[in-house]
């Protein structure tokens, strides 16, 4: 379970965060939410699909790391073997939370929280959050900047998904994978860009998608499918 508290200089002065990548630190996730702003980096390593939040049924784009629950095929003895790690993974143990603030446009203000029950939290090893003079360290500054990007990413995802649904550009798919040992694995519950519908859009719609910054993201998601093969190969390699 998580135990998020507001991050404070006094309360968390001596806190450190372990940045190593391992199952012990909760990195054994099958997939993680991603955002069009990082699609360029994500698609170079991972397939990008779409899935539903089980709590709300709302769609979000997600980067696939494994073929079953709790499986991350990029995790090795030496850490996370990929050129890019998605922001929603890098954010831990921080979270962007909201405080009521009448001066802010939505009546709420984003604030930084930290999960005190996260196994990354330490007092002995890892990156410190604050300097001797109580200033945020570069590590904390970088983490906050990730949170800010995630905050913008959530907003961007909303419009992106709405547009995809409106244009019927998402479709469910089931991936049947036969591994080298002959076992059949089924990946279901994921959605992908409906390419047939995409190719039938008219010029004005493409223009709209382009202006909103969605067009590139759509094609990056399509291109990312080529990362599925290497993912399956990783799984096959484990069978040996």
């Amino acid at each position, binding site marked *: 379970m998580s135990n998020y508290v507001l991050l404070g200089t006094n309360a968390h002065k001596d806190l450190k965060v372990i940045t190593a990548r391992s199952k012990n630190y909760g990195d054994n996730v099958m997939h993680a939410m991603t955002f069009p702003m990082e699609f360029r980096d994500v698609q170079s390593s991972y397939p990008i699909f779409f899935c539903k939040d089980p*709590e*709300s*049924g709302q769609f979000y784009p997600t980067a696939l790391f494994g073929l079953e629950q709790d499986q991350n095929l990029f995790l090795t003895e030496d850490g996370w073997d990929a050129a890019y790690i998605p922001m929603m993974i890098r954010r831990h143990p921080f979270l962007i939370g909201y405080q009521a603030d009448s001066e802010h446009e939505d009546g709420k203000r984003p604030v930084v929280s930290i999960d005190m029950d996260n196994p990354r939290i330490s007092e002995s090893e890892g990156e410190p959050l604050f300097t001797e003079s109580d200033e945020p360290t570069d590590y904390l500054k970088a983490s906050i900047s990730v949170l800010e990007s995630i905050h913008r990413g959530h907003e961007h995802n909303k419009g992106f998904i709405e547009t995809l649904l409106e244009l019927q550009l998402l479709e469910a798919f089931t991936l049947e994978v036969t591994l080298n040992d002959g076992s059949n694995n089924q990946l279901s519950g994921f959605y992908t860009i409906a390419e047939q519908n995409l190719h039938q859009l008219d010029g004005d719609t493409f223009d709209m998608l382009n202006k909103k910054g969605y067009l590139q993201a759509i094609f990056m998601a399509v291109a990312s499918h080529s990362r599925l093969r290497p993912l399956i190969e990783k799984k096959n390699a484990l069978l040996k």
Partner: protein
Amino acid sequence: MTSSENLKSIVIVGGGTAGWLTAGIIAAEHSANGSESDGLIDIKVTLVESPDISTIGVGEGTWPSMRSTLQKMGISETDLIRDCDASFKQGTLFKSWKTGGNDAYTHPFTPPHSYASTNLAPQWQRFSNEVSFAEAVSSQNALMFKDLAPKQISTPEYAFHTNYGYHLDAGKFAELLRKHCVGKLGVTHLKANVVSINSSADGDIESLKTDSHGDVSGDLFVDCSGSRALLLGEHFGVPFCSKGQFLFNDTALASQIPYVNADDPIASSTLSTAQTAGWIWDIGLPTRRGIGHVYSSGHTTEDRAAQELLAYITATVSPEAAASASIRKVPFSPGHRAKFWHKNCVAVGMSAGFIEPLEASALVLVELSAAMIAEQLPANRQIMDVVAKRFNDKFLYRWDRIIDFLKLHYILSQRQDSDYWKDNISSSSVPDNLSELVKLWRWQAPWHRDTGHIDEMFPSASYQYVLYGMGFVTQDSTTVRRSDREAHSVAEGLFRENAERTKKLLASMPTNRELIEKITNYGLQKI
């Protein structure tokens, strides 16, 4: 309309759920705005609604068929849930029907596990002392007892884990249908009173004289005017056939009761609780419960019926709710017209007939009638009589089967606490077809061939649920049968599969209320 002229225009009289459902189903199949393109004509659909007559909601429970009906019309399920105060219905939970005590059983919408290939009923009978039939063969039974939903927020619109229909506010439903029919499907809506009917020389209806829109002419007239049956009954004089000799209930006392707490569970079944001379329905909508007593006026008085209704409300809601309940009396004649399609007029809804809502047959009959009209819409007048005859044969058969199936609930009861229950088992009150079937089922469990039609309203699975839910016993076969042996060899595995699926569903399905609240907040996805 001469005999070879194309049928171009349909006029529907009446704007309740029957009228708007019929309009929507026909308009969804035939473009309804009467325009012409590529030499093909669109059918024009006009609905004439009296501004002076308020509609009475026939039934607030639907069958699962309503999902595909609405989907074909292009209505979003999210809109239905949000706009019609709708909740999910997984079947009916019958209480006190067997003995009058605390007995309860379900008739779920999902057929028994593996029903297409294996008859589990005889296999279950060996364990009938340990587990109820519905629990052994259906994972929906457990969801119904726990007020759980048939799907999750991530399940797309109209898709499901367990089959379902709806409970809804009939008035709001008619309004949603009206908006959709007029706004999206091109149905013309006229608010006018029908003053008289203009006939052509051959006796067909030529047009309706209205008070505010002059003469409204059409090629086919659909009578959705309610039990008054303005066209089929009053104008054409097609006689009414009472079925009161089989089904005694002829009066309903209806009330709407708010929940005690805003987060009280919303039942995901229609609750039907047997009384001394009738039964009480209890239908959970998100904002209120519809509770009513339908009874036989020949067996009890209005006062006694009201007392039983208030006692039920006191026990299941609160004494305060009973004290402030406002009760509306709705008398009705159980039965139907001798035929439904006469000349160029067809009756749909209460104008065709009405029977107690024990299995919520009112709205599904509207759907089935409108769907057949839409599908078999005669191209011209000369073939209309052929379609009419087929329509009449089909729906007379359906009424007979509805009466059989409803009556089945009564004749299996062990209740002897009133003349009502005693009279219900007297042989003169049981249709011959039903007597024969029940005799047959003493020796063999209902199975696919026991029902005559491919589009049967109550398949043999429904008969199984009611028979074995009521404690009916079918004798074991005394001879060796290959199908029994085969069923025996797979039964244990199927029972186990069902138990595992039940466990999974119990752990993963939200409550009916949780799901409805999520749909209100987020909506359901279309995919």
